[in-house]
């Protein structure tokens, strides 16, 4: 008997900011559309919830979309596609206002308008915020608003394991219901991937346990290239040990970074911006301070001090309340009185599923938005607070686009899809739930994270990346014999973890392969052996294609409109 097919018009994978925004946008196009929102966690658990500092949009009187575009392009080290950036900055303010209309509790100026704060790499105050839990409030507002639309049907705690591609078109997903581990066939005329990033391929990250690159791996295996995967953002200020983020808003509000000499060392690196420099430059500066012996020594390696004590308790409690809570709870330090130990920590993937400005991929029917996607508006380095807004702008765009496609397209044929889903169900049972001995998930994953950190950290070399490519290949072989304890059908979270590791291995391979082939330094990708930017060869996006021999790297030109490449100076 064939699996039952759950038929919708649009299937969205992931319930964070991009996925929810896409769902609402599609529902607003037509109330005739049935929109499946499939997520491995309840939507409000998505990683958007952890974003703290804010969302950028040219809202203030002294700001302009041109200036926002220029800051973003300079921040990207000229690799951003400038048409994508132009669309982004133009639509950003309306998205912020829309969220306000939906109830987002933005922090306010005394006159009642939405407040803005300073952020790294932005030349004026343009980051709107809701205290220092902006992502939390934005996510909850989107989730709440999504409840108003009957067309949005949620599949909470369903893990998508495969895209269903029939006659060259992506027409649905195979999704495992975590309650009983049964694979369901969820069909739609358009599929949108919004599964966030893949920070978990590194050991030390701000990313939650769920950020395992699922959507990237799904697309990659279906033949869609991953773009610019070598660009991994280190946030300069995470707590040593846990990697918990100390928001950039702490520096936006006036916080300082000190080395063990008691100096604001950034005057040696970026004196015009100091603590408000872009993240790639600050993260490199901190590592270089460590190499000079100017870091403090701690049980989790070296760190520098983030000091906000001079801001005073009142400002800290009003603007940085959550940061204070985190520091007190997790390291027992009250930043009102003491500096916070911080160090660079993996935070964000600039790269992702290759899409156009409407979120379409090269595979008909398949779309992506948010951190999963690479439009590219972030190029080689994203500016802080651009990503929440990216989820809104490009989430809305892809939602409208998918709606238009779904209204025009023919119904997908159910039977071939159900057969594909059934094949997937058999694969999962035979591969993971059969009795067998093998290696634990945890040891393979730990070795993967170590290999990534060593080979593809803040500073990279030909040698380090080559080694990492070999190590990741070896780990892929070890994964073939992975074994799990849990044979149950109810909430087999170990099976989910095994499938997540499968995804992480694919994403990691794309990162190190792309990094090896880019023999220049640009934005977050810093090669000690190729310290300069090389526009002649590399003003191009990398594309990693999955092949039986591993990732194959190709390139496409970056789109330049109004801002010719220039030296990135601050």
């Amino acid at each position: 008997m064939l699996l039952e097919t759950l038929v919708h018009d649009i299937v969205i994978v992931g319930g964070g900011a991009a996925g929810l925004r896409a769902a609402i946008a599609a529902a607003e196009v037509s109330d005739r559309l049935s929109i499946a929102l499939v997520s491995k966690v309840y939507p409000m658990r998505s990683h958007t919830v952890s974003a703290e500092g804010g969302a950028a949009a040219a809202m203030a009187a002294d700001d302009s979309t041109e200036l926002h575009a220029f800051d973003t392009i300079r921040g990207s080290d000229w690799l951003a596609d400038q048409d994508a950036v132009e669309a982004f900055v133009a639509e950003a303010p309306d998205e912020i206002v829309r969220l306000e209309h939906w109830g987002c509790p933005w922090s306010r100026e005394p006159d009642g308008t939405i407040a803005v704060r300073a952020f790294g790499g932005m030349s004026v105050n343009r980051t709107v915020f809701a205290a220092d839990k902006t992502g939390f409030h934005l996510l909850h507002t989107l989730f709440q608003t999504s409840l108003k639309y009957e067309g949005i049907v949620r599949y909470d705690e369903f893990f998508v394991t495969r895209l269903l591609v029939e006659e060259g078109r992506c027409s649905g997903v195979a999704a495992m219901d975590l309650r009983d581990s049964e694979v369901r066939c969820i069909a739609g005329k358009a599929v949108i991937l919004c599964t966030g990033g893949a920070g978990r391929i590194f050991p030390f990250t701000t990313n939650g346990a769920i950020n395992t690159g699922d959507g990237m791996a799904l697309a990659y295996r279906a033949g869609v290239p991953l773009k610019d995967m070598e660009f991994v953002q280190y946030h300069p200020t995470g707590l040593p040990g846990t990697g918990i983020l100390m928001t950039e808003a702490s520096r936006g509000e006036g916080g300082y970074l000190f080395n063990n000499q008691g100096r604001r060392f950034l005057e040696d690196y970026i004196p015009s911006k100091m603590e408000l420099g872009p993240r790639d430059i600050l993260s490199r500066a901190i590592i270089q301070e460590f190499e000079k012996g100017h870091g403090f020594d701690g049980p989790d390696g070296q760190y520098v001090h983030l000091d906000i004590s001079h801001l005073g308790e009142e400002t800290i409690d009003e603007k940085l309340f959550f940061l204070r809570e985190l520091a007190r709870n997790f390291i027992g330090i009250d930043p009102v009185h003491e500096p916070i130990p911080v160090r660079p920590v993996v935070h964000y993937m600039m790269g992702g599923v290759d899409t156009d400005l409407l979120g379409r991929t090269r595979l008909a029917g398949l779309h992506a938005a948010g951190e999963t996607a690479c439009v590219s508006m972030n190029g080689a380095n994203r500016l802080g607070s651009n990503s929440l807004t990216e989820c809104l702008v490009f989430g809305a765009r892809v939602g409208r686009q998918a709606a238009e496609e779904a209204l025009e397209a023919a119904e997908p044929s159910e039977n071939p899809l159900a057969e594909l889903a059934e094949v997937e169900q058999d694969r999962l049972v035979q591969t993971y739930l059969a009795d067998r001995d093998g290696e634990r998930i945890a040891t393979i994953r730990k070795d993967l994270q170590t290999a990534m950190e060593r080979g593809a950290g803040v500073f990279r070399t030909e040698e380090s990346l080559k080694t990492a490519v070999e190590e990741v290949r070896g780990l892929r072989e070890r994964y073939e014999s992975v074994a799990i304890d849990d044979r149950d059908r109810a909430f087999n979270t170990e099976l989910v973890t095994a499938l997540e590791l499968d995804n992480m291995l694919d994403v990691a391979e794309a990162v190190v392969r792309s990094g090896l082939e880019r023999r220049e330094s640009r934005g977050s990708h810093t090669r000690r052996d190729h310290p300069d930017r090389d526009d002649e060869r590399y003003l191009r996006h990398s594309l990693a294609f999955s092949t039986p021999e591993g990732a194959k790297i190709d390139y496409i030109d970056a789109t330049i409109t109004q801002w010719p490449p220039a030296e990135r100076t601050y």
Partner: protein
Amino acid sequence: METQPVGEVLANSEDRRAGASGKITVTIRIRRFNPELRGQESWWDEFTIDTDPDDRLLDALHQVKWYQDGTLALRRSCAHGVCGSDAMLINGQNRLACKVIVKDVAPKVTVEPIRGLPVLKDLIVDMEPFFAGYEAMLPYLINDEGEPRRERLQSPEERHRFDDTTKCILCAACTTSCPIFWGDDEYVGPAAIVNAHRFIYDSRDRGGRERLQMLGERTGVFRCRTTFNCTEACPRGIEVTKAIQDVKRSILFDRF
């Protein structure tokens, strides 16, 4: 052996554990449940691990799951107290496993699923009844007056009025610590009221009267017996009982 030169190596918590310095031994007693194994009977398992005293209890549970018993089932996501996934009954109190530091509960800690919702497996409960109560409160901004081109103005004071109840992470720690909720499956519970409060007192919202009417009914706020369990349980420090009292007063005096 690694070759030089390579990228820098950052420390991480698993390496730190392996470093053997200053570790402590903790015994974790976990109430287990698995409908496929032992029917409707729950049982206790004990695990002993060596851990960093500053680790989170969630890290310790992960250590059990990754290295001792892969069948242990729990929910988690952000691991720093804002996504709301990992509320558990820890030494008899509802808390988030990611906000409990191991040294504060060592050498022995008891972990159970939160109470009042059906257990599905180990520490995972059925959240659907909880979310049904939340959704019944119309937890979204209601305003049919037409959207202005710009933002609706809201003073910092107006914004402050509902600030406390915007903090709810929907972890269910409050609702599942409420003795009324345990005994009366029609009572919407504190989290639903907190989320109604968040909109009732938002100057932009026009659905307050509708929500107050619902909360004035038998299943609503007057079920509350002011035991303050919810306030004590809230990992975000929301004054839940006060919010419930605000709503009671608004119903009684028809003013909000």
